[in-house]
């Protein structure tokens, strides 16, 4: 089965047809998706501002990273699960949208980066990481997250 056929099968399966019959379910799920985005934004900024030497710069980065991770995971859980539902509603449409694939690629990259390199640098003892390295990691993280959010907004444009 090709990806397009899979998209078609999902979109026209019985539960999804029933879901689309409600005109307000999609906007409600999209709203929850945005709330998840806000929480992810807060958790990411808390750590990345600190790595840039801004925000809560008097606190150890490792402590902030531990505080933020719970909320990052929570926000991700909300946004990813609602995002899957939004995708399934119009899977074949998204299949043809360049911004959808840009967003998915950026999301995959930022998740791998966040839970590997970014996590290791943020959790390390402040004395053992050079400021330049912290800054570079924060900039990569912020750029990728911005691309994810940007792609998300542009999926919805005509």
């Amino acid at each position: 089965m090709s990806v397009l056929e899979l998209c078609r099968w999902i979109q026209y399966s019985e539960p999804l047809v029933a879901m689309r019959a409600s005109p307000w379910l999609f906007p409600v799920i999209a709203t929850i998706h945005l709330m998840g985005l806000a929480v992810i934004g807060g958790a990411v900024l808390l750590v990345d501002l600190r790595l840039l030497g801004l925000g809560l710069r008097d606190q150890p980065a490792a402590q902030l990273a531990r505080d933020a991770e719970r909320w990052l995971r929570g926000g991700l859980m909300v946004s990813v699960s609602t995002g899957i539902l939004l995708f399934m509603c119009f899977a074949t449409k998204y299949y043809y949208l360049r911004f959808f694939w840009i967003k998915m690629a950026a999301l995959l990259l930022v998740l791998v980066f966040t839970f590997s390199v970014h996590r290791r640098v943020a959790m390390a003892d402040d004395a053992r990481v050079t400021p330049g390295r912290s800054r570079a990691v924060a900039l990569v993280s912020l750029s990728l997250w911005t691309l994810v959010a940007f792609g998300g907004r542009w999926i919805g444009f005509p």
Partner: protein
Amino acid sequence: MEWLAETPWSIALHESRYVFLIVLTIHVLTLTVFVGTAVMIDLRLLGMTMSRVPVSQVMSRLLPWTGAGLLLMIASGALLFYAAPLVRYHNVFFRFKMAVLVLAVANAWVFHRTAYRSVALWDLDPVPPRAARVAGGLSLLSWALMITAGRMMAYQGYWFD
């Protein structure tokens, strides 16, 4: 309002192909800075994160970012309003959103004038006193309502027509 809608810049913004979408993108992406940092402050007030960081430090180091986010939100939001003044004015979700915004700012203002004055007494408490928790909770609720109203503005027809 009709006068505003007929100014040449309003029509230009309304009919532009990309400028309007770019302003809308800035408005939505700034949500992460404005609501994101506000949520972290509110969660600290509720005792749900950064329990080892003094409340006053969370406030003084993050609130400038919330403020900058709010300014950008209002600037881009004003442009979105200017692009279609009559449509926004008649949108029930827009009116609701503006009302919640006023209440949210009033809540923050009251908190800074009352409970926050004695922050020195509870700065290091993992869970701040009740008055601060209430302010944080109300603030979180208002952001949720504003996001909801903002998203629903595009769907007014689904709900009411």
